């Protein structure tokens, strides 16, 4: 405490020191009672030593340095004072701006905001120490030297390698973004230029980013032997030859007849039988069913049952006697003997029948061969047939036919028959490329609820 006071006194008593703050009064320094505290503890030094006066002094020094660029006491008088010459100066200033105020004043004077933002400290900024000396300079230099050496050898550092690798990956990703498949201005190139069948085909990898998997052999077979475009029969010409047109009409007619036959058959099966229809008689009988007792029937039927029952009772089997049994056994043995003898004779006879047996075998073989060839033929024919690929069977489209009077005389009047889109679609189905389907039916998911509205109710 005493030391601080001493310091303050010392500062104040320094020759030529001017304080800016008027409050720092020398008389203020001595006052108040001293508090007694133990000074052998560092904690108490901090707590109870009063350093405000030193701080104030230092603050004041800093303030002076900041605002005037140095201690006021060290400045010359010229720097602090000027001679006041009255108001002549101001009048001049006011008279002058009348002409060029609007132009000149704005252009020369800096904006106020700039003035505010301008630093007003007169202390020059401290020098950057790091501009003159670097921390760990030695270490860094050594590292740089080492890197140079490695570069001279051609060794790429690990971090750089990583970066390079990543950049490659980025490039492939960018390539994957392609234009739409149906872009009308898309480019094509020579796809079949180089023939390479190895699975790691670089072209394929570039296109897909994946290696190619071997395609199963079976996929290269066509599912049907039919040609892609089946040309219409010569009768389908727009101006057909008479006979071929007739042939086509005949064909179409046969198809129709077949259809009609099937329809008729179905109708026949569905028709109500004439005998099943109710007549007045049957209706009456139905009405009185159970009301009239058939006495005769009742009388006769029990009798019949009795007779049957008695008949069944009579035919109780009697026990066989010993003799009968023996006789039966003997007969059985004899029969078997006869059979075996017969078999033997037949076998012996077969020796003489060798030729006919051979012929029979030959015939059989021929038959199997014939059947085999027939089966082969059928299989070949099946190849051109549509297969059953789903729930629905393939239904051949209607034949396109124009009748004699529908035929146009000239190309101008021609009315095209059928739709090619449908023809192509059916052709795809016929060649087993797609399975025949029906258009999915619209099915309402949520139930519809009918509510009578009040307005509606009022009207009705």
């Amino acid at each position, binding site marked *: 405490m005493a030391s601080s006071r001493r310091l303050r006194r010392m500062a104040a008593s320094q020759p030529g020191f001017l304080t800016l703050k008027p409050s720092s009064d020398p008389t203020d320094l001595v006052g108040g009672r001293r508090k007694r505290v133990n000074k052998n503890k560092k904690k108490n030094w901090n707590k109870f030593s009063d350093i405000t006066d030193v701080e104030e002094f230092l603050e004041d020094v800093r303030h002076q340095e900041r605002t005037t660029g140095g201690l006021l006491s060290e400045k010359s008088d010229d720097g602090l004072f000027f001679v006041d010459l009255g108001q002549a100066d101001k009048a001049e200033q006011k008279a002058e701006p009348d002409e060029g105020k609007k132009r000149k004043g704005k252009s020369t004077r800096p904006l106020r905001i700039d003035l505010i933002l301008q630093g007003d400290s007169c202390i020059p900024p401290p020098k950057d120490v790091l501009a003159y000396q670097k921390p760990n300079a030695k270490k860094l230099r050594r590292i740089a030297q080492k890197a140079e050496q490695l570069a001279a050898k051609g060794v790429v550092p690990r971090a750089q390698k990583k970066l390079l690798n990543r950049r490659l990956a980025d490039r492939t990703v960018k390539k994957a973004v*392609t234009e739409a498949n149906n872009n009308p201005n898309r480019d094509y190139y020579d796809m079949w230029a180089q023939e390479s069948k190895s699975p790691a085909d670089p072209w394929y990898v570039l296109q897909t980013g994946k290696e190619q998997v071997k395609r199963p052999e*079976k996929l290269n077979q066509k599912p049907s032997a039919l040609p892609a475009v089946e040309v219409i029969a010569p009768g389908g010409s727009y101006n057909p030859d008479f006979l071929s047109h007739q042939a086509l009409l005949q064909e179409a007619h046969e198809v129709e007849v077949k259809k009609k036959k099937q329809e008729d058959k179905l109708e026949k099966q569905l028709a109500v039988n004439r005998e099943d229809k109710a007549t007045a008689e049957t209706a009456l009988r139905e009405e009185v069913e159970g009301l009239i007792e058939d006495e005769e029937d009742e009388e006769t039927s029990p009798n019949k049952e009795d007779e049957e029952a008695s008949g069944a009772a009579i035919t109780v089997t009697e026990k066989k006697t010993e003799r009968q049994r023996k006789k039966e056994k003997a007969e059985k043995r004899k029969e078997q003997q006869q059979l075996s003898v017969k078999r033997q004779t037949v076998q012996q006879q077969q020796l003489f029948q060798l030729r006919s047996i051979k012929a029979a075998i030959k015939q059989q073989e021929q038959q199997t061969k014939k059947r085999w060839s027939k089966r082969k033929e059928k299989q070949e024919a099946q190849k051109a047939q549509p297969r059953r690929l789903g729930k629905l069977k393939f239904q051949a489209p209607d034949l396109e036919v124009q009748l004699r009077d529908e035929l146009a005389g000239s190309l*101008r009047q021609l009315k095209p028959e059928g739709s090619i889109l*449908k023809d192509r679609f059916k052709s795809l189905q016929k060649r087993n490329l797609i399975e025949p389907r029906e258009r999915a039916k619209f099915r309402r998911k949520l139930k519809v609820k009918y509510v009578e509205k009040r307005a509606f109710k009022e009207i009705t």
Partner: protein
Amino acid sequence: MGGLQKKKFERGAATNYITRNSARKKLQLSLPDFRRLCILKGVYPHEPKHKKKVNKGSTAPRTFYLLKDIRFLLHEPVVHKFREYKIFVRKLKRAYGKTEWSAVERLKENKPTYKLDHIVKERYPTFIDALRDIDDALCMCFLFSTFARTGKCHVQTIQLCRRLTVEWMNYVITSRALRKVFLSIKGIYYQAEVMGQLITWLVPYQFSHDHPTDVDYRVMATFTELYTTLLGFINFKLYHSLNLVYPPKMDIKAESELKEEFEEDYAMNSESYTEKLSALSGSLARVVSTEEEEEAKLDQFPAEGEDVEKMEAREKEQKQLEAQKKLFDGLKIFLNREVPRESLAFIIRCFGGQVSWDKSVSIGSTFDVTDETITHQIVDRPNFDKQYINRYYVQPQWVYDCVNAKILLPVEDYFLGVTLPPHLSPFVEEKEGDYVPPEKLRIMALQRGEKPAQEQEEEDDEEEEEDEEEEEGGDDEVDEEEKAEEKNLKKMEEQKSQGKSLQVKVTPGKVRAENPARLEQEEKAEEKRLAIMMMKKKEKYLYDKIMFGKKRKVREANKLAAKRKAHDDAEKTKKKKARK
């Protein structure tokens, strides 16, 4: 007898197949996506031989796939794209629902897309494989390119299809590959021969669409997606095989010929070039500007025996083909506005003709109606007022029939207002002994270079009949001569026996004119007869059967011919009556 009991359906056929639904689950795709994937990759359903064995004892009809195929599909990179797309749709829906338009915009910009190039390469490892399968692609592209741009499918797809078909037609024109055309009631069938492959395709008539409801458009669009990719690559390769610039460019000469007066009326500037290309009237630019190279001649190899005949036949065929390729060379044909312009322009240009139309019909016309050098004008109306003397006015069928007959047919049958002869299908090839319609006979006669008169037709028939008779009667004549000699001898003998002194006389011998051709024929016939005699019983039986079949065919053909004659006669009498 130990061992575990074998469980059912864990081996054999049951393990080779997989149902559609389980396949779908395995791939984690929705049904439409699965269907799309199968179409793109060429994986088709398969009908098992024994349904019961595969379907765990049930015979219910289901769709089966081969398990190996589905396993193969698992590796397809496009599957990931499908999943991405699914997610994209979900996000987009959500953004729409929340009316977050910036998010919608951003999502749409980053819409996931995929390419099918690798699939095409995988399915068609070589170019020829791809070319063999192009029929379907062409049909589909031609069909889609005629669709109205109303939203039945993507407008872009339609544009792409149109571009590809125009490229294809331009290629066919430049390579002169077209062989056959058939106007049917359905559409127009074309057949071209490209690199030795016969390619058939079907083109719908213009404006003939009603959209059928029982066709799955999604499936068709998927097929088209694949086929546009395929056709594009094929076009590229084909163009390069002819040294043409690939996105096709017009020849500078051809371009300058096209009139540019009313261009703005037809197309915007951005589209006018493609429209001009699709007019098919100009030739294409080449990479190496060599005009029409000399056709390479067929190599001659020394050959013997049957090979010589084959070679000759081949040479003849080749010559015919060359002639056909230059069918319309030097002709200047003008199309009236009522005829199908694109089809006719395509065909005429395919065979080397020059073609034009009224400039108000379409872009790309090269000369006017008033041009004096026009040789033919295609007209399809009953009468025509202003006619030039130095040109033929014919109906469009003439062009098509000429192409099929491989010669320029007489124009008289196709004049304005004349009832046309029937348009025969060039795709029917008659075998020996089949019935051939008289019109075709006539064309065949014309091809052989016989007189092109109408009366010839009947004569032809008669001649043929006579020919037949001659063949039969040939042997008889010889017999008759022999018989006459024998008679003479007999007479002489009789006279001798009667004791009369013979009038011994030496008559000068006649020199028998020996016809070498006939002799040869006889020899051949004799050889054949002997060969038949030498046949084994079995072979003989077969031979008889074949011959019987042939005869029956001939009989049927004769019957048809008679029917036709009767029909014609009836028509004639009708006409006569009408005239009276």
